């Protein structure tokens, strides 16, 4: 008897039991179900939610792999093991097995904890609430390891994931009903609960925190610093990296956010696949550019001077803002989350623009924690329904006006 038939018999067996959602969730990963249409259209298009989510994950895989290499690379650079890259994207110093393995063993646990805890909770809720396991967490689970510092302790991540999935999503009714992006809810939880692990100049480089602890314990070692570009700029220092390094991603930062090039490619893939909203991505970039230009103008007009604590970031050339920090990653993979973004096409333009605009604004005005993408997206998630409301009201008004013209 084939595997297909065996599983079919098992599925029947589980059908009315409590474990049915859990079984079905696993079963549907192997086989597209044998379900046929009943009522309504007799045929259906090829896409389902799994395929949609899978496409987003595929777009993120290059960022994940690059992140693994980069974690090892940043570690080895900081510990003085290797020289900085010189030969562009394919520099041999970067793509070494040593770099990869350091990152792999550091990041794989993050992925496992993220999926393990998150999917565990999803399964639990599906069983309790007797509905099928929805695929929303597949993307969230991949996003989470990409937006945290590499040295984050696993237990913190586990707590944050549990908080984010339960409070950020399940209390609203699960996938499709949440107001805030679950991955960013998880990150925001980490940020506010464990701020020392989410910012500063240690957490971005594998081993730096441990080294600091060793020094504190009396070891005679050099301290390791792995400041992000935003961190340096916020303190009025030079960025310390070339623009090309920023674009290609050979810089410290959260695991998956550093390579603007790969994020750009992922974004183009999503737009081509018609899964990601090009409206949001484009308008968000426009918003960031406008804000960046405004700040540059403020500096150019001499309204603030070098003594200001905002000078470093305000004077950053406007288009550099697109390359540093989490802006690109947030724009492509997080602002576009269809559930929490604006849902009307017109609304997407407004929403995206404000995400970009506010990202750079918070980034510049928040030198203690010089990044604004997360907060900007969460803020706009909250306002997205309002934006949609007014867009839809436009349509409603048109209808009412039509009626008035008739009766007048």
């Amino acid at each position, binding site marked *: 008897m084939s595997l297909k038939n065996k599983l079919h018999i098992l599925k029947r067996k589980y059908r009315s039991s409590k474990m049915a959602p859990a079984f079905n969730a696993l079963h549907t990963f192997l086989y597209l179900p044998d379900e046929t249409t009943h009522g309504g259209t007799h045929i259906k298009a090829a896409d389902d939610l799994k395929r949609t989510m899978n496409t987003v994950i595929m777009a993120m895989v290059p960022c994940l792999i690059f992140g693994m290499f980069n974690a090892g690379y940043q570690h080895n650079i900081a510990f003085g093991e290797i020289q900085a890259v010189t030969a562009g994207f394919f520099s041999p110093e970067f793509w070494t097995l040593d770099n990869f393995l350091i990152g792999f063993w550091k990041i794989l646990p993050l992925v496992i904890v993220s999926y393990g805890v998150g999917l565990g909770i999803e399964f639990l809720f599906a069983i309790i609430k007797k509905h099928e396991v929805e695929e929303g967490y597949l993307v969230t689970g991949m996003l989470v390891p990409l937006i945290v510092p590499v040295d984050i302790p696993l237990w913190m991540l586990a707590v944050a994931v549990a908080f984010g999935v339960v409070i950020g999503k399940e209390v609203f009714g699960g996938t499709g009903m949440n107001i805030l992006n679950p991955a960013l809810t998880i990150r925001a939880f980490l940020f506010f609960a464990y701020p020392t692990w989410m910012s500063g100049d240690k957490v971005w480089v594998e081993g730096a925190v441990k080294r600091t602890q060793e020094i504190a314990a009396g070891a005679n070692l050099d301290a390791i610093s792995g400041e992000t570009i935003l961190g340096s700029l916020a303190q009025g220092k030079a960025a310390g990296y070339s623009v090309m390094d920023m674009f290609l991603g050979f810089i410290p930062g959260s695991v998956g956010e550093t390579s603007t090039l790969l994020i750009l490619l992922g974004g183009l893939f999503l737009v081509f696949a018609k899964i990601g909203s090009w409206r949001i991505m484009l308008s968000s970039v426009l918003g960031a550019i406008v804000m960046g230009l405004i700040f540059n103008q403020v500096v150019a007009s001499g309204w603030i001077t070098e003594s200001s604590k905002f000078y470093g970031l305000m004077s950053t050339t406007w288009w550099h803002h697109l390359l540093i920090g989490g802006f690109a990653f947030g724009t492509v993979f997080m602002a576009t989350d269809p559930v929490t973004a604006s*849902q009307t096409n017109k609304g997407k333009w407004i929403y995206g623009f404000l995400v970009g605009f506010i990202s750079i604004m918070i980034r510049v005005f928040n030198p203690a924690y010089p990044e604004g993408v997360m907060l900007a997206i969460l803020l706009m998630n909250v306002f997205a329904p309002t934006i949609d409301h007014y867009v839809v009201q436009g349509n409603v008004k048109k209808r009412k006006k039509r009626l008035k013209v008739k009766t007048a």
Partner: protein
Amino acid sequence: MSNDIRIKKGLDIKLKGEAEQSLEKATVSNFYTLRPEDFHGVIPKLISKVGTKVKAGEPVFYDKSNEAVKFVSPVSGEILEITRGEKRKILAIKIQADKEQTYQDNGVFNVDSETPEATKNHLLASGCWPFIKQRPYDVIANPDKSPKAIFISGYASAPLAADYDFTLKGKEAELQAAVTALGKLTEGKVHVSIGKASTDSPLAGLTGVTLHKVSGPHPSGNVGTQINKIDPVNKGEVVWTVSPQDLVIIGELLLTGKFNAERIVALVGSLVEKPRYFVTKLGSEVATMIYDKGLAEGAHARIISGNVLSGKRVRPDGYLDYYSNVISILPEGDDYELFGWNKPVFNKISTSRALTFSWLNPNKEYDLNTNTNGEHRAFVTTGTYEEVFPLDIYPMQILKACMYKDLDEMEALGMYEVAPEDFALTEFVCVSKQPHQKIIREGLDLMLKEIG
């Protein structure tokens, strides 16, 4: 006068098994049924009992809430059986046809000289009224309310639809009589649409109508799309819609006095050996058409009375729907597919490009089955419906309003303008596999009940 309507948003679903333009006389059906479920919202009150002899065109039941609306027998014969369901709800009235057909004579009706009132009464009494549907609510027209306009779509854009230019050929006189009669019942216009590419549409030469030429992908041929583009329904207004094939029956009744339930039906679908057209009658057994050079005996197939997007599933011993002019046969898709959710897909239609490759080959004809290609989920993706939905309405928002039953919001978002079939394409492309047409139908029923 002719006006062009160009639709940009939509999707042409090209399937295998389009009917070739050859006409056959279907085997004469021994039994015919009338199913009240075909007439949405009608509560039938029987006039005849089991054993009653009826002539073709003789009323069998009427609408409880509107006694003037009569439903007549398509053939002469004897009422054999009345099937009832829960709470004695009438499911089907089965009629055994006579060998020699006799017709009730309604008299020749002079459409040009009669008054609107007389015209209306004649249509009601002769059983032609159920062919006239209304928006809002997509139900049989309420004869007490005068419509602001009447819409007739002579362009079929649905997948594997019957070609009106072919099925209406030679029926110009009947069509003209019917539109003249209908034109008396409205103060507004009678809007008739034909395909832009059509060269020999029998509807093109009608007088007393406003002609529109339609182009663009499905749902450009849906009457709902055309209403939205020509003269959308506002609150308090009513428009009527009639299918062209039903105009033929109305026209013949006016001209000859006979209710001739004859209709040309297309037999289509990938499982049909020779897809073609049949002359048959309303309510006849589908078995009289589907097996001869059609469906292989014992094939695992779904038989649909109507098109593949909005039609009704019927059993092999079932009957032709009162409003359908196509019988579609698709392979059932009740099988698993290994890694069907992530592997590249070449043999199914998709509007995305998420490892789905139907965009490479826009003219390919597909052999789709009835598999849902995924499980039912909450609404997640946005923007996909808008791509195939040409009406000036927010599709996801109105669907959600129907689901949480907010009557004010449904009204504000345009519920008076829509019918379930307008949401067939959004349902087809829906990633979350939500039953859009059902949601809209239930929403309309709720509004009809609460607002009326």
